[in-house]
């Protein structure tokens, strides 16, 4: 049976982006690629996964060495320019429990560049569905992927790995979300052109902020930055007047003196009718007076504060990753148990035993009650007859199972038998 699971691929750790790009599969041509994958002699089931950080082929087969070679060649064809063996340094191959663990970890975002990022699960689901549509998924990969999805869900809901921001700019976004309900209708004012400020502004925009004002001592630079962000440039001498429009203010100038005094901000917050403001001071020097944080409904975080939170989150996340890895281990063990139970002979034995148990039970019940008066001979005849019935009932399914021409369906039939007759391993 094709119970060997194999993964061949490359990811952000083993291959640079130039290589990943070349090997990547084109989503619009995926159907054809899956057909080619399935036409490889030893591959019985297959899924192709291709994101910007990884390209992997997950296959189920009965012949591990042959499949490994075929799938490698299959991936090499993606990048013929590299020549034969050109990708060898970048490719990894996992089989058995390693392969199961790998796909579970990928789905749970434990193998991602940014651990805990949520997109990967959706991507895997899409590629799995594409493979299913192309008829490339059978009993084994079906089970494998569904277990992977459920591990990922468990990890997401039962650990905190997805919810911890570990960079200064993502901490800023996380804090903004604690203050504001949604960022889509908020306005950011970026003061200065420092690198960190730029980063935070970008992160805020990615998180939904649509309106952005940019100001800088040299107006040309403000115009230039505003163009990059598709925001509005504001002259430096004018920005205090616009302050009341800003929900988030990012300060990142190299100015040696404080830009904003508490009195100014207190006035602005009154004009805003106490709608909250979030000041992020991220320049090399202090841009905003720390006393600003004392004003009601105004929150000021400087780079040290943000870094402290990031560090704390990182520390906590390490613990969460550990928890997630343990969950993965549990699920890997569970899947391997299921895989091991997919054997023809034990299943047939279990089926026989089950029917025999039923036969015995019913026979004894009848013989001790309403058939009590039967003679020894009659009892024997009854015994023979019921045994023959069981034999006849089992004959066709067992013959069919043993003569299964297509190896791929074997697992399906075994799984069906186990479920229909409730043959779970004890």
């Amino acid at each position: 049976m094709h119970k060997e699971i194999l993964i061949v691929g490359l990811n952000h750790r083993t291959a640079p982006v130039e290589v990943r790009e070349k090997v990547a599969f084109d989503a619009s041509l995926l159907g054809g690629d899956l057909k080619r994958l399935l036409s490889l002699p030893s591959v019985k089931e297959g899924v192709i996964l291709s994101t910007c950080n990884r390209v992997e082929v997950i296959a189920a087969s009965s012949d591990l060495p042959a499949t490994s070679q075929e799938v490698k060649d299959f991936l090499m064809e993606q990048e013929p320019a590299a020549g034969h063996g050109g990708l060898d340094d970048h490719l990894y191959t996992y089989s058995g429990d390693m392969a199961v663990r790998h796909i579970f970890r990928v789905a749970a975002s434990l193998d991602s560049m940014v651990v805990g990022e949520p997109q990967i699960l959706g991507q895997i689901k899409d590629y799995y569905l594409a493979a299913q549509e192309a008829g490339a998924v059978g009993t084994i990969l079906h089970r494998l992927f569904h277990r992977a999805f459920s591990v990922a869900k468990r990890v997401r809901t039962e650990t905190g790995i997805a919810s911890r921001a570990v960079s200064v700019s993502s901490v800023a976004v996380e804090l903004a979300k604690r203050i504001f309900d949604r960022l889509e209708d908020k306005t950011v004012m970026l003061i200065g052109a420092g690198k960190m400020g730029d980063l935070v502004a970008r992160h805020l925009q990615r998180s939904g902020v649509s309106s952005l004002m940019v100001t800088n001592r040299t107006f040309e630079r403000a115009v230039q930055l505003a163009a990059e962000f598709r925001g509005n440039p504001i002259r430096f001498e004018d920005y205090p007047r616009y302050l009341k429009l800003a929900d988030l203010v990012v300060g990142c100038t190299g100015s040696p003196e404080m830009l904003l005094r508490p009195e100014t901000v207190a006035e602005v917050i009154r004009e805003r009718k106490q709608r909250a403001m979030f000041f992020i001071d991220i320049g090399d020097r202090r841009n905003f007076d720390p006393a600003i944080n004392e004003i009601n409904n105004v929150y000021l975080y400087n780079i040290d504060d943000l870094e402290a939170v990031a560090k704390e989150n990182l520390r906590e996340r390490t613990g969460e990753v550990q928890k997630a890895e343990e969950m993965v281990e549990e699920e890997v063990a569970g899947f391997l148990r299921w895989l091991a139970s997919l054997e023809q002979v034990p299943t047939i034995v279990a089926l026989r035993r089950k029917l025999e148990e039923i036969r015995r039970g019913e026979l004894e019940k009848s013989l001790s009650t309403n058939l009590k008066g039967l003679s020894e001979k009659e009892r024997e005849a009854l015994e023979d007859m019921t045994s023959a019935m069981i034999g006849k009932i089992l004959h066709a399914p067992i013959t069919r199972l043993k003569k299964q021409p297509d190896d791929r369906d074997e697992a399906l039939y075994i799984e069906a038998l186990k479920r229909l007759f409730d043959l779970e391993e004890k």
Partner: protein
Amino acid sequence: MDIMLLKITAVFYLLGTGSFILYMVLPREFFSRLSPLLLLGGFLVHSSALGVHFFHSGYPAVTQFREALSFYSWAMVAVYLLVQLKYRLTVLGSFIAPLAFLMSLAAFAFGAGSKDLPAGLKTYWLPIHVTLAFLGNAVFALAFAVSLVYLLQEYQLKKKKLKILREHFPSLETLDRLNYVFLVWGFPLMTLGIITGSMWAAIQWGNYWSWEPRQISSTITWLFYGVLLHGRITGDWGGKKAAVLTIFGFVVVLSYFLWGDSIFPSRHAGRFE
């Protein structure tokens, strides 16, 4: 019968409280589903207890202090469940559930068995006036809970003590908006409670206003919430100020409800004639 049901109710509220506390410590999906369900279970038993009382006696169980306590906790849980349905703010339940449990428990501790109801109370004004007044106060209890969460969240953000910052707390903006929503709902209910009360008083006692301690205290509370709401709508009373005032207002209301009648004896406190 209804006492037995009230005991079951208290058990449900206690289990709900436990589940909500667990939810605060371990924000698992499981507890966020279980906790409101436990309160719902308690609410249904509680409702049937009130129903049984009404069926047997022909008047609602609000005429004694302990009954009023119990009725208040019922109204509070009712409003919370509605809010939960619309806003899914499980965290609010962590404040409402213990309050409901303590009140339903206190309802056993106070007062003796039921007395004969004075004739003056055997009228439809009783359920109408009392229900409106208690619903208004129940909505204020919710406003109190959001404001508490607001201050907790605000404190942590200000002090940058993010380690204890709970991820499942709603944002300050949401909490502030809810404070407003609850004031907007609570204030008219309270107003109606006062209006129906004085109309009933006019019929029963012959005048709208008789300098009853409860009349005076309600009017002061009404003015307080009115000013707060007005400050929110026209001025800059949003955010922290609104939260602090809401908490203050509710603590005063609750204290008066618990102890006011024994300090200022009134016709609302069982001296009906």
